[in-house]
């Protein structure tokens, strides 16, 4: 199979150093300075985003605040402001929607769009459209916001192209230049190829991206011990295999706890808050759930998790919390907890829902409906479980890493 000879219609754009760049946009005094957005400002807080000025000094996402400070003592530490980031995300989505309606948010800072057969390409090339979008971002969102744009015949190569030049890049990978681009990349520059996969490829004599591209399917299947080898063969030739959007199978919320918490009594208010968030999102998407799952990561690195399926469907916060609390009793934590996560699974859409003749009818259906209406009108957690009262400072509004599920319904919740 040769490289896809069709024109590049796929564009992937990501906001460079998203959270940090948006903060520099908001506060011009921070521009040109090393800053980071961190989960907490304390020494052990994880860095979520670093400005380019901080990155140049070696400060990276995932580092602790203390490590960042040791590299640059004057490093400015900011807490995340999710409203601000969601606002910019929606503004960018609006700009993109002027060009195509075939687009998807891959995360808070990343969009993929397809312009095939759209009028935007009548008088402009893909690169022309990309340059125009960059301009619009500067005039309609902010002059400090830059995006890196990748153009290619498929999503995967568009992502690789977007990663090649940061910040403010515009790179195309197509049938005419792919060999040149591949010759300049290392295996681990490819999204999805980290040390483990690189080792698998090395074991079959594949050391470069060009080797990878030129390898026959049998060799790649042998390297990955699965059909994944065929997927890589197709992907690197510019054919689309990554377009499938997976159906939602669960809703969940988690929190990294910033203080020393170890008992069930201390954890239950946090669990109540998380459960309320999860249950509200479940109901807003018009689902019920039959399963509840609880996961706990302890500060010593050990992990506990358990899920339970019920005979009836759950939708109220109280019902879901009751099950989650039972799971917490089973866990019976006695050491410091770093993360706690609750999720609901085995989802049933309300419209396809068939009540069982003998099922337990939700006790608080009307109360739940009324409380959701009040919270929508007066703000999240205006009415909440009494148990969650003590957890407000532990469970903050956060944006999930990489995930896009939480962005569902964002449009309807924003102005």
């Amino acid at each position, binding site marked *: 199979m040769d490289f896809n000879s069709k024109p590049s219609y796929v564009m992937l754009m990501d906001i460079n150093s998203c959270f940090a760049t948006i903060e520099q946009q*908001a*506060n011009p005094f921070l521009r040109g300075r090393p800053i980071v957005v961190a989960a907490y400002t304390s020494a052990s807080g994880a860095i979520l985003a670093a400005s380019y000025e901080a990155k140049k000094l070696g400060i990276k996402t995932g580092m602790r605040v203390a490590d960042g400070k040791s590299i640059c003592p004057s490093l400015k530490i900011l807490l995340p402001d999710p*409203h601000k980031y969601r*606002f910019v995300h929606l503004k960018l989505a609006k700009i993109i929607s002027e060009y195509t309606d075939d687009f998807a948010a891959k995360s808070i800072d990343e969009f993929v769009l397809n312009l095939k057969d759209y009028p935007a390409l009548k008088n402009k090339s893909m690169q022309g459209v990309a340059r125009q979008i960059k301009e619009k971002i500067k005039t309609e969102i902010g002059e400090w916001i830059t995006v890196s744009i990748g153009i290619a015949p498929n999503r995967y190569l568009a992502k690789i192209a977007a990663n090649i030049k940061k910040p403010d890049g515009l790179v195309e990978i197509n049938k005419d230049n792919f060999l040149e681009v591949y010759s300049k990349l290392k295996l681990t520059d490819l999204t999805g190829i980290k040390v483990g996969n690189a080792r698998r490829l090395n074991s079959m004599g594949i050391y470069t991206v060009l080797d990878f591209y030129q390898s026959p399917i049998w060799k790649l299947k042998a390297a990955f011990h699965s059909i994944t080898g065929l997927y890589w063969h197709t992907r690197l030739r510019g054919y689309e295999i990554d377009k499938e959007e997976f159906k939602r199978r669960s809703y969940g919320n988690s929190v990294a706890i910033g203080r020393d918490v170890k008992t069930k009594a201390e954890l239950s208010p946090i669990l109540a808050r998380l459960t309320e968030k999860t249950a509200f999102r479940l109901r807003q998407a018009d689902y019920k759930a039959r399963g509840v799952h609880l996961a706990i990561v302890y500060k010593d690195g050990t992990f506990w998790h358990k899920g339970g399926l019920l005979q009836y469907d759950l939708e109220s916060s109280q019902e879901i919390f009751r099950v989650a609390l039972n799971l917490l009793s089973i866990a019976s934590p006695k050491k410091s907890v770093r993360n706690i996560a609750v999720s609901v699974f085995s989802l049933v859409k309300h419209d396809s829902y068939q009540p069982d003749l003998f099922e337990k009818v939700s006790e608080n259906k009307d109360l739940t409906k009324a409380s959701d209406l009040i919270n929508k009108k*007066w703000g999240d957690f205006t009415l909440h479980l009494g148990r969650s009262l003590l957890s407000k400072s532990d469970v903050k509004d956060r944006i999930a890493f990489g995930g896009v599920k939480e962005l569902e319904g964002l449009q309807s919740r924003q102005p």
Partner: protein
Amino acid sequence: MTVNEKVTVGMVDNVPKYVIWKGQSHTVVKIGLHHTFRDGKTMHHIFSVTSSTLFMRLNLNSDNLIWTLEEIENNGF
């Protein structure tokens, strides 16, 4: 620095031009970002602005039209 104090804001063409805080007027030189969010049905307009020496985060509650100076920072670390 978190402040959360009521302030008077002068607007021209829907854009803040000056902020009066503690009896002192600060001329807005630049608007970094104007974003909005809803808390229930209440829309909040957040203006991140600078004077010649200060960064200010202003919140206009569109229900009661009260301006709050939420944060203030000196130019510099």
